């Protein structure tokens, strides 16, 4: 199926042998440590964050960004690494959010039980729906997953059985939660939780894509018929990837509901899946750090562009410019279209694209 032949991002050009080369494998670890100790700093970054880095508002924004970095990395397991264009990934995230919320708020279960049940349930849901949806390939698969996700959105919005709170959403009942996860002063713990989730997803995706299964998945992306000819069953491998990605997304939902403190129906919408797709493509599909970067950046821009849109600098522009600029989705959608045209490999391919340019600009030594 040529339809889903996602061009893999070009392999990073071999970096110069030297100090950087030796340090390179440890960079993710350094980044993790920096992110982990970030809440201890009181630096203010004017223009980037409102208030110091360790203020609850900033930490919450960062935590949401990290969650979506993890979600995008999980979605990339489907889109970038296996070549499955699913338009229903929001469903499993929403299953995580609403599952936890309903079990804690309506059923009064302790958090760990609710989380365990939700992640198990989300994974089973992904396995069942994936088993049906994967009977189709390509665009039909995209539409079927979209339709399944739409059922989820309808179920939540129509509020069957009075469980989900319908259009108004369902605030999380915090009375039964561990004290360390409740209250504005404990936002830092939620931040660490989000960081742990991101680390988990990146680790899982990395291990899976390095394993023999991961190589089969890459093969499915590049040429599904050939995998079939080799005697492997494409259906099973795709179902494994779909189930795993669904389970990771529902785990993300569990953390997200704690950070936001409730569930609202907009997370079930197909727009969320579309924005996951935008994140992955902006970051670079099929790369290790691209989707994470894309997810973090997208969520950050989505939040900050709203503030930017109402700032004086934009308001003083003529109405023709200021009105579209005050819509984050307009800016992000336009950037996305431009990225599809001019940076097909996303952010992750920027360095390999810019290096030749920089090299050609450097003055040559005289002979």
């Amino acid at each position: 199926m040529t339809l889903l032949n996602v061009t893999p991002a070009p392999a990073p050009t071999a970096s110069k042998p030297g100090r950087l080369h030796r340090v390179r494998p440890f960079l993710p670890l350094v980044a993790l440590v920096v992110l982990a100790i970030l809440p201890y700093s009181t630096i203010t970054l004017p223009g980037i964050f409102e208030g110091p880095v360790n203020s609850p508002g900033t930490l919450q924004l960062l935590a949401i960004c990290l969650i979506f970095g993890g979600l995008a990395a999980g979605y990339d397991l489907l889109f970038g690494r296996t070549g499955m264009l699913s338009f229903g990934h929001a469903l499993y995230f929403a299953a995580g959010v609403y599952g936890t919320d309903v079990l804690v708020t309506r059923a009064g279960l302790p958090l760990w039980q609710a989380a365990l049940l939700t992640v198990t349930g989300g994974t089973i849901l992904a396995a069942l729906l994936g088993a049906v949806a994967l009977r189709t390939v390509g665009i039909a698969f995209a539409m079927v997953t979209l339709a399944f996700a739409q059922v989820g959105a309808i179920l939540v919005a129509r509020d069957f059985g009075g469980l989900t709170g319908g259009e108004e959403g369902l605030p999380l009942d915090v009375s039964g939660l561990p004290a360390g996860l409740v209250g504005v002063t404990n936002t830092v713990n939620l931040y660490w939780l989000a960081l742990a989730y991101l680390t988990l997803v990146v680790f899982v995706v990395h291990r899976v894509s390095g394993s023999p299964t991961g190589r089969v998945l890459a093969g499915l992306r590049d040429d599904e018929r050939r995998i079939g000819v080799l005697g492997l069953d494409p259906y099973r491998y795709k179902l494994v990837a779909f189930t795993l990605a669904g389970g990771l997304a529902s785990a993300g939902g569990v953390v997200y509901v704690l950070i936001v403190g409730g569930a609202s129906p907009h997370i079930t919408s197909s727009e969320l899946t579309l924005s996951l797709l935008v994140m992955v493509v902006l970051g670079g599909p099929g790369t290790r750090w691209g989707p994470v970067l894309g997810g973090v950046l997208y969520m950050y821009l989505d939040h900050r562009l709203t503030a930017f849109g109402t700032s004086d600098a934009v308001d003083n522009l003529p109405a023709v410019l200021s009105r579209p600029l005050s819509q984050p989705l307009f800016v992000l959608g336009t950037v996305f279209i431009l990225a599809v045209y001019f940076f097909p490999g996303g952010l992750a391919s920027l360095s390999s694209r810019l290096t030749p340019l920089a090299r050609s600009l450097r003055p040559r030594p005289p002979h």
Partner: protein
Amino acid sequence: MGTVILLALTGLGLAALYFLVASGLSLVFGLADVLNFAHGLFLGVGAYGTWWAAGNLPGAGPDGFGFVLAVAFGVAAGTLVAILVELVLIRPLYSRTIEQVLVTVGLSLAGVALLQATWGADARPFPRPDWTRQVTGILGAQVPNGGLLLIIAAVLVLGAILAFLRWTRYGLVIRAGVENREMVTALGIDVRKAFTLVFAIGGAAAALAGALGGVYFGTVSPGQGGSLLIFAFIVVVIGGMGSVVGSAYAAVVVGLVQQFVNYYGTSGLGDICVVGLLAVVLLLRPQGIAGKVATA
């Protein structure tokens, strides 16, 4: 009895709306393999174009001939946007389907945001002739005229598209292209002109759906296209991609199922039944009712 007839006719009105959106989607997908997420944008442009023309265009208005002029303006605007999208955004990515889908996704996000930025997120009252607010008694059922208007329009559009596909040279090219694009190209025919044409037809039908949908619902809002689009996708898959007649059958089935189950069951159950229907069709007959054949 009256209730059944009322439900059947309102269901057909809904089906007409789905068909107007789905026919263009289906042709575009059948010919160019583009899953067009921006189709909801064409619908929005048609609705807002009509709304704007009724208030601002000299000679146009909410009633009589002025309303026809307003709808014509909306349809022209939708068609123009569709042609521009094809020429500027889709054509450079010819035969790279995944990028084309991504571009239409970006376009649907940015376009709806642009509509929202220009006219606000809230629903606006739609200018409509007085007679569309009234009802007609048919076999003891009081049927809203707006729905009847939609049904008539959809039947006319169906007839026009079929006649075009059947009796014109470009219709022949499109039918052949849906069946085997490479062969048509090999015969020395520029299929890309047919792509533009199909986009224009689809854009016009979607814009008409936007304008008449505005009459039917009485309001117009930026997100209207998106929610209709998902059901239009379902109609396209059930009907078989590339088949206009299949889309028509599927639209009728989907519209009726939705209306009847939503009335006799719980509200919202009909929407879920439609998705169940989709799953059943895909498992039993993955190519849809009519398969990938542009029947005329």
